[in-house]
Structures are given as structure tokens and as C-alpha cells.
């Protein structure tokens, strides 16, 4: 117990360390990542009930899950979730850029980049929060839901066009003011040492991170912001999965997002669980959790929406 107490007090002292923007950005990145992971795991399982619900003899399972998401508490949580997803994405992109050009890791640029990330997050989050807050107000507070249903095709087209554009705009903003013009120091080449597991994981986190920005943001923009949880039901899922492209999209999302999340949790485990025995046990749990939840999600996407006879 004393060991746990000591770790906790060290953890708290660490949080109170008077770092600057970098420390804030790190704490924010972790919190946003952990929060998103928690939601993601639940979300994969409950969405899978479109397939498993009927199979298990509980065909109304999915609508139960959606009812919970429609409660005011969860809708507020969803608005926070969108902020987390936006921040984690932009801040991650900043880290990837700085890692690609290490000479950008200098005091002035790092501090400036943090504020750019915060500003862009707020800028993107504001309209999303407005739309979601409006939906929350209409459905839960004044209880006067609009009669017209969400135009899924228009929303999809908008998201698929706008988000790649946004992605490049963010990339440009992060690069502008950087040291792109300053030449990287010259040097020589050596044989790269054999890559270890940690090298591969580090690289996967970066590649998947770049890929996940459009993948996750398009998904979130359509499902959470533009269409909204009140317009989502079994029919909506069936309609989307009628297109092979969206099934492949969801498979990619499942693989990369959940893989990225589990490896992120592996980093957190390594950071805070120094005891080698427990460290190994928790990592095995992570692998098992990853396999089980990914399998559940994959079976549901392949199986599609099952309805009672």
C-alpha cells in the first residue's frame, strides 16, 4: 500500500510541476486520449449489438443503447468527447510534425504551436458544440424536436469534402511560422540499428495518427454533429452498411482507432506501472481486450444489421 501511496503522491506532485505549455499540452493529450479510448471501447461494443442483439434474442438491444446516448448527461459527454477528439488530433499532428523535423522542437516554436493548437481546437469545436448543444436543447430541454429528419446524404457529402480540406489547412497553420525554411543540420548516414518492438509501435502511432484525423473526424462530424444521436437508429446503420465502402471505412476505423488507443494505453501502462510482473500482466490484459473487442466489432461490421424474423 505504501508503494501505491508513494506512486500516487509522486503522480500528484508531477501534475503540480510548474511546466509550461509543453506540460499542459502533454496532460491534455493524455486526458483526451484516455477519455476517447473509454468511449471508443463502449461504442464498439454497443454498436455491435446491431448484429449480436438479434442473435442473442434481444433485438431491442441497440435501441436501448441509443436511448442511453440520447439522455442529456450523455449528450453533454458527447460534446466534451468531440472537443477531446479535435484536440488530440491536432496536438498529435503537431507532435508528428515536430518529430519529423526535430529542429522545430525549440522553445519559441513549441510554445507558439501549443496556442495554435488550442485556438484551432476551439475554432473547430465551437460550431460542433453549437449544433450538438442545439440538438440537446431541442430534444431534452424544450422537448420540441424538429419535424424534418436529418439529410444524411448532404451531411456525408459535406463532411467528406470539408474534413480533408480542414486537415490540410491545419497542417499549413502548424507549419507556417515554423522553421521550414531553416535547413536541418547536415550530417552523415549510418546503418539504422535493428528496429525493436518499441520502434515499430512509435512509428505506428505516428502513421495511424495521421490517418485517423480524417477517418475519425469524418465519422464524428457525420454521426455526432450533423446527423446527431436522435436521428440514429437501426435503419440508419443498415442504410450506411448497405454500401461496401462504408463497411470498409468502419473496418479501417475499428482497426486503426482501437489499435492506436490500445497502444496509447500501453504507453500509459509503461509509464505508471513499474513493477515488471504487473506490467506484463496488464499488457496481456490489453492484448486480450484488444483482440476481443476488435473481434466483436469486426464480426458485427461483416455480419451487418440483423433483424428479428
Amino acid at each position, binding site marked *: 500500500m505504501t508503494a501505491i501511496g508513494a506512486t500516487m503522491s509522486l503522480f500528484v506532485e*508531477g501534475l503540480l510541476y510548474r*511546466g509550461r505549455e509543453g506540460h499542459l499540452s502533454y496532460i491534455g493529450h493524455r486526458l483526451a486520449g484516455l477519455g476517447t479510448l473509454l468511449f471508443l471501447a463502449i461504442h464498439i461494443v454497443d454498436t455491435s449489438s446491431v448484429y449480436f442483439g438479434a442473435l442473442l434474442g434481444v433485438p431491442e438491444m441497440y435501441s436501448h443503447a441509443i436511448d442511453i446516448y440520447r439522455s442529456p448527461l450523455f449528450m453533454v459527454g458527447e460534446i466534451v468527447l468531440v472537443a477531446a477528439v479535435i484536440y488530440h488530433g491536432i496536438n498529435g499532428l503537431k507532435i508528428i510534425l515536430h518529430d519529423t523535423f526535430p529542429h522545430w522542437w525549440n522553445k519559441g516554436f513549441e510554445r507558439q504551436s501549443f496556442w495554435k493548437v488550442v485556438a484551432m481546437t476551439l475554432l473547430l469545436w465551437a460550431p460542433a458544440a453549437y449544433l450538438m448543444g442545439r440538438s440537446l436543447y431541442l430534444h431534452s430541454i424544450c422537448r420540441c424536436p424538429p419535424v424534418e429528419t436529418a439529410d444524411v446524404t448532404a451531411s456525408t457529402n459535406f463532411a467528406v469534402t470539408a474534413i480533408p480540406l480542414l486537415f490540410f489547412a491545419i497542417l499549413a497553420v502548424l507549419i507556417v511560422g515554423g522553421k521550414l525554411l531553416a535547413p536541418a543540420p547536415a550530417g552523415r548516414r549510418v546503418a*539504422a540499428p535493428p528496429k525493436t518492438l518499441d520502434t515499430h509501435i512509435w512509428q505506428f502511432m505516428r502513421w495511424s495518427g495521421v490517418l485517423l484525423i480524417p477517418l475519425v473526424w469524418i465519422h464524428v462530424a457525420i454521426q455526432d454533429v450533423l446527423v446527431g444521436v436522435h436521428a440514429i437508429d437501426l435503419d440508419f446503420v443498415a442504410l450506411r452498411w448497405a454500401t461496401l465502402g462504408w463497411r470498409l471505412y468502419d473496418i479501417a476505423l475499428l482497426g486503426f482507432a482501437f489499435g492506436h488507443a490500445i497502444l496509447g494505453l500501453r504507453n500509459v501502462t*509503461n509509464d505508471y506501472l*513499474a513493477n515488471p510482473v504487473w506490467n506484463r500482466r496488464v499488457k496481456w490484459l490489453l492484448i486480450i481486450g484488444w483482440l476481443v473487442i476488435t473481434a466483436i466489432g469486426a464480426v458485427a461490421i461483416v455480419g451487418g444489421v440483423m433483424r428479428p424474423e
Partner: protein
Amino acid sequence: MKVTLKIKRFNPEADQKPHWESYPVEVEPTERLLDALHQVKWFQDGTLALRRSCAHGICGSDTMRINGGNRLACKVLMQDIVKDGGTVTVEPMLGLKVIKDLIVDLEPFFAHYRSVMPYVVNDEALPEDGRERLQSPEARERFDQGTKCILCAACTTACPSFWSNSTYVGPAAIVQAHRFIFDDRDRATDERLAVLNEQFGVWRCRTVFNCTEACPRDIPVTQLIGEVKRALATGRVE
């Protein structure tokens, strides 16, 4: 100016856990925190334990958490950290075992330093004149940043990865490794990169940037770590 020093005290022979003690001192605004600590130790409470040697920012002995962040007590002017009548908090570095008051056990830190082989390794025959291995000014410039390190441990004990697990090699040792990896006279690049490629090597870096902010020598620590990561990922030592 009259200020209060609030110092975290810990005497392993008497205390269960650390406690705070406050000392009023009168200092010139242009005096350093170290001078204020000397006032406490010399005239108020001789039992206060702290490390310092040169007192001029070169030996790197008096790193401590000053108002919550790692600084050298001998390089911090009172006027920059506190107003008249204010309070300065002083604590030992985080992540290393406290021996007494502001003194921590630096051995894990130096063990990591030794692990990256902080010396030039070159078994090749000497140049024909039998004298030193010459190096171009550009090649010398390439690793200049790392040579400024005074091993004060401010970066390593500012690092969240190191706080939670002191098995992590830490920023200072990576800076030292960088200094030799990027030295074109050195021939042990592979061995050093292999050390940093291990589970507790550079991949534990979460780019928190506390190291760069804490460095009293203005070494761009995160940048140097980034260059080592890139060298590991791509083989480009440039």
C-alpha cells in the same frame, strides 16, 4: 526586500514524511536564491541540507524545484521569482530519492549517464602525424549543443516519464549520447543507438518539453532527443 523561503524539509532519521518550514530573509533584489538559502543555513538553521559547489552555474550541483519548476539556485535572481513580501517555495528535485532536505540521491541519474558511454570511442590508427584527429568546424558545430551539458539533472528530473519510472534513461543521458553519436570522430554510434533503442530508451520520451524548459544551459533537449529518435527510425545521423 523581505521575502519568505518556504522550504520542504525531510530528515530521514527523524521524519516519517517531508514537511514545510518557512524562513523570513532579507535580500537584495539582485541576489540569487542561493544567497537567500545561505542566509538560512548560516544564520537561522544550520540543519538545512543543500548541495552547491561553484555557485556560478557551472558545476550543476544546486538544482532544485523553485516555485514548482527545476532551476539552479545559483542562477535565479530573487527579483525574477518573487516580489517584496512574497514567498518562494523550494523543494528537492522530483523522481529521485531524497537523502535529506534538498539533497537527492543522484546515483540512478549517473548510472544512466554511464550507460550511454559518454566518451569518444575510436580504435582506428591515429593520423599519420600521430597527433589529434582533426575535425571540421562544421562537424564540431553539429554536436555543439550537447557539449554545454553540466549534468545538473534539471532536465531528467523535470521529465514525467522519469518521475514515474526511473529506469528510463532520461533526457540528460540522451543528450550525452547525442553529443557522441553526432561526433564524426566517434565509432561507437551503433552501440549507443542500441542502448537508446531499448525498452527504457528514447521511446519513453513523450515530448513533454519540460526538459528543454528546465535546462539552465538552454540546450534544446527535446530537439536532440528527436534527432536520436529519427536516427533510430531512419538511420539518418544528420
